[in-house]
């Protein structure tokens, strides 16, 4: 076979392979009228190139048959081109199309009877086979019709472009290909070109143009998943053709190089063929995957994984990270910035990015034209399209400049329940790609991603909202007591090796303020104060509404002096507010604050609270409108007066206390003495523990009143000689709550409540009524517990004999760490042993 002959086979072969490949690719997708019209066009191209190839190869049933196939393909190209354009431009009206269709059918029939190209045949020219034919003057007829048909197609495109339905650039590759084919066909008839297959060569260029049109311009939206069938078919076909052509030469080469392995020739050939076929399969798979919209199963898998993970993630930051990572994986060469709606300010703040080196500094206000547009049109938009909107006109120059600096290519809104929750800006990371718009496929993919993210975001936002509500006080929007405690524990843990201060602020005579100005005004000042306090404290600490009129503020890593400074500022703020009551009469409201600090005052969180409360009580009892720092030194600082006041208060209430204890005496004589003993022992213990005088006084009074609730206990149970049954024991346990209920009616003595409430609690948490454990039990209560137990053991009761002092102390020692605070218990034992606590009174029993 001569070189020329080979060229005449190889070129049409390549053209045919291209066309068959495209045909199979398009044939495997979802078909509509447009796709069918495109398949028709591809069929004509395939018939043209394949017919030419087989004719040259003189395959069965012979060159005349393949000539007819080829020439029919050539003649039908103009009509199928028109038909494709007709479908693509959605042209209405069938008349012209029908006329053209009938005309081309007639032309084809006439052509089949060799009216235009006469006497086509293969001749031998020396060693070369040539195709020769004659031309009838009638050929002008199909040529004229072809020109007319192509002009009509061009007109349809022009009209559609003018109406704005399509872009001319989409069709450029198609027309370039068709015109190359046209000139190739004309050139083939020239004598100079007769020895070259320019027509089929132009056919292969046309196929490349079509591929480009489908892949880059996305003229037809090809939906489908890469199917292996057509790829296998093409790969095998190619491999067979290669084998048929190359086997002879390969065999000769094999025998020359490896004569000793001639027996294995078949096996080696088979293996190489298989490998070659697999290589071709990979090549075609890659080519076809580029053509199809849903080209990547891998991407789908990733998308499913993202979808599942997003729906399971409830916290905002992990969700954002997930979203950014997903975008990073799937948008190569692009940077995404995620702006989240910030309900408090109403703006959209940058919260995430795919570029870790990028600062999260940008934000969009709610009235930003971009936000307004996305709220009204919740769908992905290219930056170019946004620039064409009127909203773009409303942007400030610096806002436009910022978006330009970001090199934004696409904007992705994330909406839920008709509210714009977030915005994702996709930017070209590489500046040279600035004006490249994302493909439809990418935009669709982004929209799907945003839909998934919006569900996750909605869940996360709801979760955050619930969490926020659970942590906040509804009136003041400050943290609530529960969160404050949780937070303080964390802060305490962090500050364990440093220091932390606690401040409790309470409005003085707030009930009076409410009565004078109404509860509405009371709520208003609480809200205003809360806002001011939050601003005042800032990042230095955490402020919370502790209860009705009380606020608590923790200052990690700060001394009590720092807290005091803030308390004074808060006091000053309130004073200013009261002096400038917005044009109305001056009002009267002051605040007191108590401060304690770790490790100087307290050893635990509970002690911090206890001492801060005590300091606050001290402030209240020292004329109010004061800031008091807790101090241990008895008689020192501001607590001296407080102690005196407490003492005076106790003296003034003595009659009440004695009246109450006398009532118990009437019921149970033992209890009266018991209360006095407990008060005495506990106050001695408190003094020994270096508590301040006021605290000691509180414990003494608590000792007097700790069993006051026994008034409500039936006398029969109190004086029962035998052991109490479970029911009776339960009744007697109620005396603690009964005591509290009674003390509540003595508001001036309410400071004893913590100690009274906890005097039956156990160090191991098995006590009653609250089941508190360890340092949670107020210090006063722990003192009372020891004094109470010791007195109970040492006393004669109707149901028991008094214990010896050694036995009582041994019992206490045995229960250290279970019932009693071990540290205080040791002190108590020492006090008894060294006689500080006198036990002479028990000898009279």
């Amino acid at each position, binding site marked *: 076979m001569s070189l020329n002959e080979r060229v005449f086979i190889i070129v049409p072969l390549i053209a045919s392979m291209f066309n068959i490949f495209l045909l199979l690719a398009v044939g495997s997708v979802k078909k509509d009228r447009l796709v069918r019209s495109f398949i028709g066009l591809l069929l004509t191209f395939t018939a043209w190139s394949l017919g030419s190839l087989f004719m040259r190869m003189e395959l069965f049933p012979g060159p005349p048959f393949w000539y007819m196939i080829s020439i029919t393909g050539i003649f039908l190209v103009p009509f199928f081109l028109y038909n494709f354009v007709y479908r693509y431009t959605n042209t209405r009206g069938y008349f012209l199309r029908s006329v053209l269709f009938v005309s081309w059918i007639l032309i084809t029939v006439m052509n089949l009877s060799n009216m235009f190209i006469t006497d086509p045949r293969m001749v031998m020219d020396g060693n070369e086979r040539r195709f020769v034919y004659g031309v009838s003057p009638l050929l002008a007829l199909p040529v004229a019709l072809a020109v007319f048909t192509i002009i009509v197609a061009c007109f349809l495109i022009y009209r559609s472009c003018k109406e*704005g*339905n399509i872009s001319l*650039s989409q069709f450029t590759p198609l027309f370039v290909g068709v015109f190359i084919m046209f000139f190739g066909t004309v050139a083939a008839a020239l004598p100079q070109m007769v020895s070259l297959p320019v027509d089929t060569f132009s056919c292969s260029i046309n196929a490349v143009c079509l591929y480009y049109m489908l892949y880059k311009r996305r003229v037809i939206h090809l939906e489908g998943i890469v199917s292996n069938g057509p790829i296998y078919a093409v790969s095998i076909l190619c491999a067979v053709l290669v084998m048929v052509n190359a086997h002879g030469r390969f065999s000769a080469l094999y025998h020359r190089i490896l004569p000793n392995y001639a027996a294995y020739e078949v096996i080696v050939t088979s293996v190489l063929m298989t490998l070659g076929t697999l290589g071709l399969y990979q090549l075609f798979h890659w080519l076809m995957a580029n053509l199809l919209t849903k080209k990547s199963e891998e991407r789908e898998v990733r998308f499913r994984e993202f979808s599942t993970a997003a729906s399971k993630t409830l916290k905002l930051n992990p969700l954002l990270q997930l979203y950014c990572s997903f975008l990073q994986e799937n948008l190569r060469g692009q940077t995404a910035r995620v702006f989240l709606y910030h309900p408090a300010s109403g703006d959209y703040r940058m919260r995430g990015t795919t570029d870790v080196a990028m600062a999260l500094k940008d934000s969009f206000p709610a009235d930003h034209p971009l936000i307004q547009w996305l709220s009204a049109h919740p769908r992905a938009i290219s930056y170019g399209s946004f620039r*064409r909107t*009127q909203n773009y*006109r*409303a942007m*400030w*120059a610096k806002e436009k400049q910022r978006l330009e600096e970001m090199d934004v290519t696409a904007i992705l809104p994330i909406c839920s329940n008709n509210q714009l929750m977030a915005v994702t800006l996709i930017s070209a990371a590489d500046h040279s790609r600035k004006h490249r718009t994302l493909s439809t496929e990418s935009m669709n993919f982004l929209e799907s991603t945003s839909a998934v993210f919006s569900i996750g975001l909605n869940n996360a936002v709801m979760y955050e909202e619930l969490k926020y509500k659970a942590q906040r006080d509804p009136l003041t929007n400050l943290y609530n007591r529960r969160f404050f405690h949780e937070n303080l524990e964390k802060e305490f843990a962090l500050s364990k090796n440093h220091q932390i201060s606690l401040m409790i602020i309470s409005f003085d005579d707030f009930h009076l303020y409410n009565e004078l100005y109404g509860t509405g005004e009371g709520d208003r000042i609480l809200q205003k104060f809360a806002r001011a306090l939050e601003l005042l404290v800032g990042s230095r600490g955490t402020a919370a509404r502790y209860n009705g009129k009380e606020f608590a503020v923790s200052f990690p890593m700060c001394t009590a002096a720092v807290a005091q400074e803030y308390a004074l500022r808060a006091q000053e703020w309130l004073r200013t507010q009261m002096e400038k009551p917005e044009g109305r009469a001056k009002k009267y409201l002051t605040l007191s604050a108590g401060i304690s600090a770790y490790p100087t005052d307290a050893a635990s969180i509970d002690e911090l609270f206890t001492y801060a409360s005590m300091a606050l009580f001290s402030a209240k009892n020292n004329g109010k409108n004061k800031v008091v720092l807790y101090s241990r030194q008895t008689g020192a600082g501001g607590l001296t007066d407080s102690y005196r006041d407490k003492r005076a208060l106790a003296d003034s209430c003595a009659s009440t206390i004695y009246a109450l204890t006398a009532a118990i005496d009437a019921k149970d004589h033992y209890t009266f003495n018991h209360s006095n003993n407990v008060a005495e022992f506990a106050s001695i213990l408190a003094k020994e523990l270096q508590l301040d005088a006021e605290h000691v006084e509180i414990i003494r009074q608590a000792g007097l009143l700790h069993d006051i609730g026994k008034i409500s206990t039936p006398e029969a149970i109190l004086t029962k000689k035998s052991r109490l049954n479970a029911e009776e024991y339960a009744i007697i346990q109620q005396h603690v709550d009964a005591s509290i209920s009674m003390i509540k009616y003595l508001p001036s003595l309410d400071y004893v409540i913590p100690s009274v409430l906890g005097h039956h609690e156990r160090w191991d948490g098995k006590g009653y009524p609250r089941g508190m454990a360890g340092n949670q039990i107020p210090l006063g209560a722990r003192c009372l517990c020891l004094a109470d137990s010791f007195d109970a053991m040492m006393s004669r009761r109707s149901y028991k004999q008094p214990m010896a002092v050694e036995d009582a102390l041994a019992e206490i020692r045995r229960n250290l760490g279970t019932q009693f605070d071990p540290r205080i218990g040791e002190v108590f034992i020492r006090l008894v042993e060294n006689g500080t606590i006198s036990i002479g009174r028990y000898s009279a029993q």
Partner: protein
Amino acid sequence: MTFEEKLRNYSAKEIWQEYCSFLDLSMDEYMTIQKRLLMEQVDLMSRCPLGQRFFRKGVPATVEEFRKMVPLTSFEDYADVLIPQKEEMLPEKPVLWLQTTWEGGDFPSKRAPYTEGMLETYKTNIIGAMLLATSHGRNTFCVYPGMRVLYSLAPMPYATGMFPDLIHPEINLRFMPSVREARKMSFGQQMKTGYKLAIKKDMNLFFGMSSVLYGATRSLDALTQSSGGSIRLRELLSLRPKMLWRLLNAKYREKRDGTPIRPKDLFHLQGFVCVGTDTALYRDELEEAWGIRPLEIAGGTEPTCMGTETWSKNGLVLFPDACFYEFIPETELRREMAEPDYVPNTYLMNELVAGQNYELVITVLHGGAFLRYRVGDVYRCLRLRNAGDKIDLPQFEYVDRVPSVIDIAGFTRITQREIEKVIRLSRLPIAHWFAVKEYDEQNRSFLNLYVELDTEDADANAIGCQLLRDHLALYFHFYDGDYSDLKRLLNVDPLKVTVIKTGSMERYTARTGGHIPPVGATKETVLEILRLQTSCDWEGGDRACR
């Protein structure tokens, strides 16, 4: 991306959306753009010495505060900065300066700075107007590269001269004559050459001053024929075949039917854009002559290109991003004229009443220099929305200059100060006068100066009204350069002098108690004065002449 590239790559819908979709805005959306851009301007102004001059009471934080705190301004408030072009005083560095006549000012011309943002907006808006000029409805237009454009507007540094320079980088339009050649020519030469080229090569788009165009339309024969009424063969051969066919065809019909050649016989315009104060008066005749209704655009040196008509060509819509617009109703204007200390109230675009006349007050956006600036133009609000065109915005028509300014054919603007100067220079024995803008039977505007002669002056009796007119016209020529262009370009005699009986004005004031404004008296006032003088048996009758 240039406009030409957009035409190639984008669909008509997308291009329409970019340039003309402001017509789809709701009133609220329109006001949002206005208010937002105003606050940008306030922000820019607050940082420059010129702005601080107007923000003495503090920087306004809202539109309402802006309207309360910033006074209404006129060019006098800016003259010390803008005439010497003190760029450091401005909110943004200007890219270029434009100028125009300062009627009644201390200097012959006013200057206005144009920033980059203003020029960008100007360009977008003028392309929008160009699309609308060739449009028959939404999303349809016919603009393409290579269009032949006859541009007969005043060259740079006048505002109208900016279009060719701005549009040139965006799309290849073939201006006749080319922009470079036009720069070397006078305005008159430019027009003449342009028309000749248009007749030779055809034209697709026409931009012109309506008064100039009107004059040209009426004397088209002069352009289509050489002297003697016959066409020279050499000239015929220089025409493009298409134009030759049209010309011969028109000539044939002229002879056959005895009707003159109309521009529409020669030109099939795709777009026809008119600028000028008297467009409304000429447009029907222009449409009849050119076969296409002219589209009017509104603008000026200070306000930039601020409005355009739509495809229906029945009312201006103001661009939302050129200026912030406020409107002074006519009643407020009258009150201000009667009480010079009175500060008139302004209203916003969404507070207008259909059918009312308003003086326009603008704040130029995108770093412009003018805040609450009284341009001196009066517009009528035709309607608040146009249901037919589905436009939800008010549409306007240009009425005239404010009563204190007499504008003749868009060329010259005459104020009380100028007339006083001319009278003083002429040393004519004129005791009292007032001036009114009137129209002749061909709808051409002219200045009618009503004068009372000083009867005590010995020369008074010897002066005829023709002498008065000639004398005054001479001084107007001397004093106002634009005035002389009227005669030269339009063949218009813009001055008429009417001598009224001495004491008529006094009598009018005594009888009605009304004040006669020196410029811009109402038609009723003029009629009443004339009636008063004719009711007395005064010798001489009507001594008006032109």
